[in-house]
C-alpha cells in the first residue's frame, strides 16, 4: 500500500505541524512562529484542522444534532484533510513555501482512537498524508489545559469535551476523561511517528524560543 506518511516528501517546501490537546497553547505558538518566519523572509501558509468548505455543512449538521458517530466523525475529518492536502498543503509545498499545519493526521490518531475507532484502521486511512518535516507536540497535563480553557471560555464544546461518549454528563468531568485518553494516545504517537515534544507548561516566550530553535535547526538542514 502507498504509505506517504512513512517516508520523507520530495517537495521543495517544508511542512511543520503542531499537535496537542485543547488548551495546550499550540495555536498561539504556531501563530508566533508564523510571524517570525514571515519576518525572516519566508513565504508561509497556515492550514487548520477541519477548516475546508467542502465538509463544513455535514460537520455542522452532524454536530448540531449530535448525530456523529465515532466513525462518521473520523471519516468527515479525513475528508476535510484530503481536501486541504490537495488544495492547501501540496501546492504551497511545491511552490517551495513553508506550510504550518495546526493539527495533522496525529490528531485523528489520538482523538478517533480515544473515541473507540480502530487504531490500525485510522493509521491506514491517513497513509496518503504527506509526511511532515517536523511535528511538534505541546504536552500539557489535563489540569493545566482545563484551567486555561475555563479561564477563556464559559462552556466546553460538546465534541471537544467528548460528551458524545456519554462517560459523564458534566462537561468538565467528561473533558477530563476524554482528553485523558487523548493524552495516552499522543504518548504512543510520539514514539511511533517521532514527534518532538515541548513542555507546554512553560511561559509562552519560553516555549516559543524552544520551538523556534527546533524549526531553525530543521531549516538549516539541506533536504535529502
Amino acid at each position: 500500500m502507498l504509505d506517504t506518511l512513512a517516508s520523507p516528501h520530495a517537495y521543495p517546501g517544508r511542512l511543520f505541524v503542531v499537535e496537542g490537546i485543547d488548551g495546550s497553547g499550540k495555536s498561539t505558538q504556531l501563530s508566533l512562529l508564523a510571524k517570525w518566519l514571515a519576518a525572516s523572509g519566508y513565504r508561509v501558509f497556515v492550514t487548520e484542522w477541519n477548516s475546508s468548505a467542502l465538509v463544513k455543512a455535514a460537520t455542522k449538521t452532524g454536530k448540531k444534532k449530535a448525530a456523529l458517530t465515532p466513525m462518521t466523525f473520523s471519516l468527515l475529518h479525513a475528508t476535510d484533510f484530503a481536501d486541504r492536502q490537495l488544495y492547501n498543503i501540496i501546492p504551497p509545498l511545491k511552490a517551495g513555501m513553508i506550510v504550518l499545519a495546526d493539527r495533522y493526521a496525529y490528531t485523528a490518531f489520538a482523538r478517533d482512537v480515544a473515541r473507540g475507532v480502530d487504531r490500525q484502521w485510522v493509521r491506514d486511512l491517513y497513509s496518503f498524508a504527506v509526511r511532515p518535516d517536523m511535528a511538534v507536540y505541546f504536552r500539557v497535563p489535563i489540569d493545566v489545559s482545563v484551567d486555561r480553557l475555563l479561564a477563556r471560555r464559559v462552556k466546553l464544546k460538546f465534541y471537544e469535551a467528548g460528551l458524545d461518549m456519554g462517560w459523564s454528563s458534566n462537561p468538565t468531568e467528561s473533558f477530563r476523561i476524554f482528553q485523558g485518553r487523548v493524552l495516552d494516545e499522543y504518548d504512543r504517537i510520539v514514539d511511533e511517528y517521532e514527534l518532538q515534544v515541548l513542555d507546554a507548561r512553560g511561559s509562552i516566550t519560553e516555549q516559543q524560543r524552544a520551538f523556534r530553535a527546533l524549526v531553525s535547526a530543521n531549516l538549516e538542514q539541506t533536504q535529502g
Partner: protein
Amino acid sequence: MTSHETTDRGAHGGVTPGHYYGHGLPYLPLADYPGRIIAIEGTDGVGRSTQIRLLREWLEVRGYGVIETGWTRSPLMQPTIDLAKSSNTLNKLTFVLLYACDFADRLEKEIIPALRAGFIVLADRYIYTAIARAGVRGVDSQWIRRLYGFAIAPHLVFYLKIDPEALARRVLESSGISYWEAGMDMKAGGDIYDSFRTYQRQLLREYAAMADEFGFRVLDGRKSIKSIQDELRRQIGEFLEEDHLIAPTRATP
C-alpha cells in the same frame, strides 16, 4: 506498526457473512444477529432499483421484514454529496471518503439496527461500487479495501453484469447519459458517448476483478426484468430455505 494489531485480514474475501471484512468498529462488536444483508450490485442503468422493488414485494408477502438502503442516501451526507457533485469540486480522495462516510452513517444507523432486529436488508449497491469507482480513478486498491474494512460482509451479493453497448442503449432510452455516469470528471475527452463507453468498460473490469474476491453471484443484466427477477428469487429462496436464523411468518392454510 502498533502493538495491538489483530490478524490483518485487510478486506479480502473469505470472511464469514455478517462479520466485518477487516478492522471493524471496536465499539460495535457484532453478534450472530438474525438479520441478513442481500446486496445488488451493478453499474448505473442496469435495473437494480426495479429488481429491488420487486424483491421487496415478494419477500414481504412471504412474511419477511425488509428495509432498503442505497448509496448517498444517508441524511447526514446527502446534502454535502449533492452539493459537491453539482459544484464539481470533488477530487478522487474526497469523493471516496464522502461515500465512505455516507456508508458508515447508514451502516451504524440503518443496517446494524436492522440486522439486530431480524430484517432483511436489501442494499441497492454496496461497497463494491465505491471500490470500482475508486479503482477506475487510480486510488490505491489496498488502501480502499482497508478503508472499507469496517463494512459487514453481506450474506448474498448479486452482480448484474452488462456490456457497455447494451447499457448505453438502455440508458439512452430512459434518462439519458449523465455527467457522472459518463465519468466526465476524469476528463478523458469531450464526447459524452465515448466517455461513457470507456468509463463503463473500465468499471466492468473493476467489478470483474472483484467477483471472485467477494463471492459475487453474477447474473446476465441483458435479460428481461422478469427473468432476472425469477433467478434472484430462486437463489434467494434457496438461501433462506437453508437459513434457520431467519424464518418467514407462515400463512395459515
